[in-house]
């Protein structure tokens, strides 16, 4: 047990801090679920790439810096503390990129990774279907081999970022009549191919953050299958473990929200203290964000000493998604009758960011595997309870 940063780590921290101070946009960007915001965020990814900060844990030859997990936590702390934009590129950088490194051919790595690192290709992820949500093994989208192509048919639902993304990775049934987890493959599909129809779905804030994607005899070359044919379930599990686990929701983001919540409370103390429970709720949120940070350092230490990322990824997902809800619910309680004001309303506090975050937080316990499914995983795999 050793809890000091090394000189190299402190050096990295100031390097990140200095670079961000020079480059983070002064004005907050529009939501990346709007056309203008998507363009702004893609430009920001390109800017990050020029500083070689877009995918710091990737190997250097892939456009990264080869940083370890503790370094990554330091980067993330500086990133969110500097008020940097959200990552429109997160599906590519945190989910698909590592999977291509683990399962992709050398040619696929050369072809896809540099364009993810630079933000030239923004990726959507397509798992769910109308009849395959929590029961993901029920998927019916097909990829039928015809010579050196697969022909894709079916519908993917709730595909995040699909409206403006360039590509989608998703799970298709490549072996006809196969059952459940067998006979599935991960396919990499450009969203502008003939036969692909993207139908936007508006989220609670009115913006199309996701879409239904329809495939009607879409021809995809065989070299756009990731990993072996039939290995899709295994690869998709690995990807969702990245998603639930360490990388997608770094603690720094919640710590900065918790800090903003404490500051909000201090500004509104005169009215907020009329309900003494609010102070305790604020402190509780702050403590939980801190606990999440410490737990992530602990997970990083374990992974670096060779332990695998197991069902604790599910525990992680439960924890951050419920924390995110509590943070924003508490903020709205403090704001009282200002809470309902939309971003842009002349009298909205903090430019309406709390309401925006509150609406977004509603999705947390559902996407990336509902929290009910995560609790099953914790009970069955961590606690070894009967199925």
């Amino acid at each position, binding site marked *: *047990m*050793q*809890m*000091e*940063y*090394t000189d190299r*780590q402190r050096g990295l*921290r100031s390097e990140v801090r200095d670079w961000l101070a020079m480059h983070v946009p002064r004005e907050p960007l529009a939501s990346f679920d709007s056309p203008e915001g998507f363009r702004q965020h893609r430009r920001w990814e390109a800017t990050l790439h020029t500083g070689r900060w877009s995918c710091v844990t990737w190997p250097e030859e892939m456009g990264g810096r080869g940083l370890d997990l*503790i370094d990554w936590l330091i980067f*993330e*702390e*500086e990133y*969110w*503390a500097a008020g940097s934009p959200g990552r429109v590129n997160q599906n590519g950088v945190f989910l698909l990129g590592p999977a291509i490194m683990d399962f992709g051919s050398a040619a696929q790595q050369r072809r896809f990774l540099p364009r993810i690192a630079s933000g030239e290709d923004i990726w959507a992820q397509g798992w769910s279907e109308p009849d395959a949500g929590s029961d993901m093994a029920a998927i019916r989208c097909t990829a039928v081999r015809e010579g050196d192509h697969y022909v894709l048919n079916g519908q993917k639902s709730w595909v995040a970022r699909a409206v403006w993304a360039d590509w989608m990775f998703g799970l298709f049934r490549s072996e006809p009549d196969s059952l459940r987890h067998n006979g599935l493959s991960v396919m990499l599909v450009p969203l502008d191919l003939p036969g692909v129809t993207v139908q936007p779905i508006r989220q609670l804030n009115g913006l199309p953050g996701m879409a239904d994607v329809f495939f009607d005899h879409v021809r995809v070359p065989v070299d756009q299958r990731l990993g072996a044919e039939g290995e899709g379930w295994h690869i998709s599990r690995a990807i969702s473990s990245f998603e639930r686990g360490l990388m997608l929701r770094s*603690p*720094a*983001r919640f*710590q*900065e929200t*918790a*800090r903003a919540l*404490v500051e909000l*409370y*201090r500004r509104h103390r005169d009215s907020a203290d009329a309900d003494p429970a609010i*102070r*305790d709720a604020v*402190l509780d949120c*702050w*403590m*939980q964000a*801190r*606990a*999440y*940070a*410490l*737990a992530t*350092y*602990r997970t*990083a*230490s*374990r992974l670096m*000493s060779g332990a695998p990322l197991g069902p*604790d990824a599910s*525990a992680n997902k*439960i*924890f951050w998604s419920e924390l995110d809800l509590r943070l924003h619910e508490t903020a709205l309680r403090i704001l009282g009758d200002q809470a309902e004001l939309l971003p842009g309303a002349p009298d909205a506090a903090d430019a309406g960011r709390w309401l925006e975050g509150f609406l977004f937080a509603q999705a947390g316990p559902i996407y990336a595997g509902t929290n*009910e499914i*995560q*609790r*099953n995983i*914790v*009970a*069955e795999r*961590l*606690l*070894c*309870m*009967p*199925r």
Partner: protein
Amino acid sequence: MDFTFSEKQLAYRRNIRRVLMTEVPPELLRELWDADAGRAYGLWQLFTELGLTALSVPLAHGGRGGSDVDWVLMAQEAGYYALPGPLLHTAWIASALLAALPDGALAEHWLPRIAKGEARLALGHPLHRLVADAHVADLLLLHDRDEVHALLPSQVRLTRNPSLDPSRHLYRVDWQPSAATRVADADTGRALWDRVLDRAALSVAAECSGLAMRMLDLAIDHSAQRRQFGKPIGAFQAVKHQLADVAVKIEFAKPVMFHAAHALQHGDPLAAMYVSHAKLAMGDVARLAVRHGIQVHGAPGYTWDGDLQIFMKRVWALDAAWGTRTFHMARVAAAVLSADGAIGARDTFPRPATTPAGPSAAPDPRNPSVMPGLQATETY
């Protein structure tokens, strides 16, 4: 930056676990409830042979010079096995207090005895009316306002107060402070009592962590054995999710506790707040483990003969020990709500570098002269 424990620390814990599992079963705890002093001489001898009484006594006084981090691991085990008696108070908290007293004479006399298992100590504190295990103490360290006083059993009069937890022995202690009993004045004493409180609150957090894990294990076992509707009740999601919630909470409270121990050991200026966070978090976990533990056990969960009560009553009893929730929340509030609070993402470890932790002084499990291991089973 490394949150993992050394192989030596883990090996020591494995050994402690193995011995306590066989030597301190619930049946023994129940026997001791009915025994006069509620304490078994053999148990203290076992702790001594396992190296626990000497764990944090400084090397110069015949101990092993262990740390708060070593102790927090052991205190978890003390919770898991619901150890009765003043082990943590004597060997961890009072030892540290003795070693920090301005006059070294008392430490000189008592620390070697503690290490050898020849002395048990009881601790008062300005926060507490009563003193735990005063009836078996060879020395009592008590407060008069902020002063520290050391008293022998012959200098005090004890009145027993039975507790909800039959393993806890609480006493009102009547005594007369005098210049002869005073071992630290109020100015020195204030800081000493603060440190006692931090260590004791951390030990309660660690015990709660062990208690929560034990109740979780009992509930998992029960849910696998008990069948209804043709299958083990643990196969039902409503049961699974209750226990998953406990498991998740434990996993996210442990790093807070380990970090607090590390901070305390290194004199971090924010250690008091970190300890309060740990006690609040582990207290929440333990209360949830009680509630869901009883629920999963069904009717056996609220019986005298069921073992769950041993652990849940300890949790209830410890809830307000060494600072109530209100007390610890106020300490967190003072740190977090102050104008200069370092509370953002960059402040997970706000302290600049200090001296790294010394090597763990846990006894070497491969050395039989230090580690009697299972031979200890022959002590009673």
